[in-house]
């Protein structure tokens, strides 16, 4: 009797195992399928870029003038040649370093303050009443319109550009953090409170980890607008940086130089956004596959 009875819960464990195996199997199956279609997707992606390059080559080589004019537009080979020339010069790398320092400083400030103030305004009525009206009024102002303000406020150009980058990235982070806090399932917080957690622990153990997916949505958008604004600010008031150099090239009618600048901005923007994306995925592995 004992023998058969004792098997009871074990049978349950086996059943649970069976369920798990099924889950793993479907999971692996799906991942496997995704890997195959992922492999197929890379050539498609590369082909898309290659087609754009080819079209560019043909349009410029044939000097097409059909409302849009390609006769004076540099072709991909001109740009590649100019790119090859620039990467050998220290100035190219200095400009990149300068722009990266500006954007990373502004972005880091925006990330920290956006999350802190987003959580504060969402969770404390006091902080909300105090800060929210200010944010609502400041938010619609395009960050690039702050250039005159920045020139007035800051002793050096450098700080002004960082300020504008910060202003651009701050609001997307703030708003998405606020929304993420408000959307947190109440039961997570309630459960941890009935286990004895106070306000501070709820904040650290529930709110901050729980809002991460939302925060990363804001960080991605923030990184995008930060690039737009750092480049524009450099064009208007910089002494260095990729944006400044690109505008410089235009004023001396160096069109291949302009396009090298644009390609550089595109690449840097893509790399930094990808870095945010990868960090976001690592920190939110717990999300169901579909939502990731």
């Amino acid at each position: 009797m004992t023998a058969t009875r004792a098997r009871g819960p074990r049978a349950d464990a086996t059943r649970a195992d069976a369920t798990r195996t099924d889950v793993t199997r479907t999971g692996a199956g799906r991942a496997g399928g995704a890997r195959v279609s992922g492999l197929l997707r890379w050539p498609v992606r590369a082909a898309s870029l290659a087609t754009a390059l080819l079209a560019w080559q043909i349009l410029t080589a044939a000097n097409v003038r059909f409302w849009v004019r390609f006769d004076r537009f540099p072709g991909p080979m001109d740009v590649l040649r100019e790119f090859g020339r620039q990467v050998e010069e220290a100035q190219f790398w200095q400009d990149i370093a300068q722009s990266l320092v500006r954007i990373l400083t502004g972005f880091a400030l925006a990330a920290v303050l956006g999350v802190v103030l987003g959580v504060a305004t969402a969770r404390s009525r006091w902080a909300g009443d105090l800060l929210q009206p200010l944010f609502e009024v400041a938010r619609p102002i395009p960050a690039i319109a702050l250039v005159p303000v920045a020139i007035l406020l800051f002793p050096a150009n450098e700080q002004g550009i960082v300020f504008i980058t910060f202003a651009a990235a701050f609001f997307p982070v703030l708003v998405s953090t606020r929304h993420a806090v408000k959307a947190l399932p109440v039961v997570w917080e309630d459960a941890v409170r009935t286990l004895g957690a106070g306000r501070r622990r709820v904040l650290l153990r529930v709110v901050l980890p729980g809002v991460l997916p939302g925060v990363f949505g804001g960080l991605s958008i923030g990184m995008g607008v930060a690039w737009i604004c750092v480049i524009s600010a450099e064009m208007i008031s910089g002494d260095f940086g990729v944006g400044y150099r690109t505008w410089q090239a235009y004023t001396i009618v160096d069109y291949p130089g302009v396009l090298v600048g644009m390609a550089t901005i595109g690449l840097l923007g893509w790399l930094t956004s990808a870095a945010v994306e990868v960090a976001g995925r690592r920190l939110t592995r717990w999300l169901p596959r579909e939502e990731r």
Partner: protein
Amino acid sequence: MGGNGALSLRAEGVTLGYAGRPVVSGLNLAVAAGEILVVLGPSGCGKSTLLRAFAGLLPAASGRLVAGGEPVTGTSADRALVFQDDALLPWRTARRNVELALALRGVRRGERRATAARWLERVGLGDAADRLPRELSGGMRQRVQLARTLAAGPRAILMDEPFGALDAQTRASMQRLLLDVLADAPATVVFVTHDVDEALLLGHRIVVLGAAGVAAEFPVPASRDLLLAALGAAPEVVQDARPETRVEEREAV
């Protein structure tokens, strides 16, 4: 592990509701320290609301809630709530969810891991310890929540249909586990269920909640305690087999 033994609970003319709309009105209810009170009642009659109030998550609109002689003013580690719906933190593995309860109880970092593993073992989830909640079934998640709550050693345990998603066999072994744990670390239990068998098996007393407070109240006959004592006193009975034995004997009654 729980501090200072079981905690008595009392509701004195308590009205509970949401946005001014009362759900429970003028409820009087006393739960003695160490008692297992089972609450039955139709859906929507306010069983979960009552548990939330005892947990300190919902203030009474009028009347008084008392725990261990002190008015209930907020949440406390003394009064843990096992939620009806999913209350695990989804970014923490099963083990890390249990560890959180231990950390909040001030258990030293070095001891948490082993203690959490032991509790998961007790709810039959030893090999699921490192899985995330989304990788567990509903019933497995409920058991992790049970482990998390019991690990914290609360003096009162408010249980909201905690075994609702379990198959009969697992349910029986969880019922057994609960009684075993209570034998070692006495706590007051308010247990909400829809299952009359479960109510009769676990409860010292059963109340049926209706629209106008407690509609009916039933003591559970003393034979239950005798039955449990008899089972507890039989050392050759394999622990895993006990729940089924009990189910059989109950059916024979």
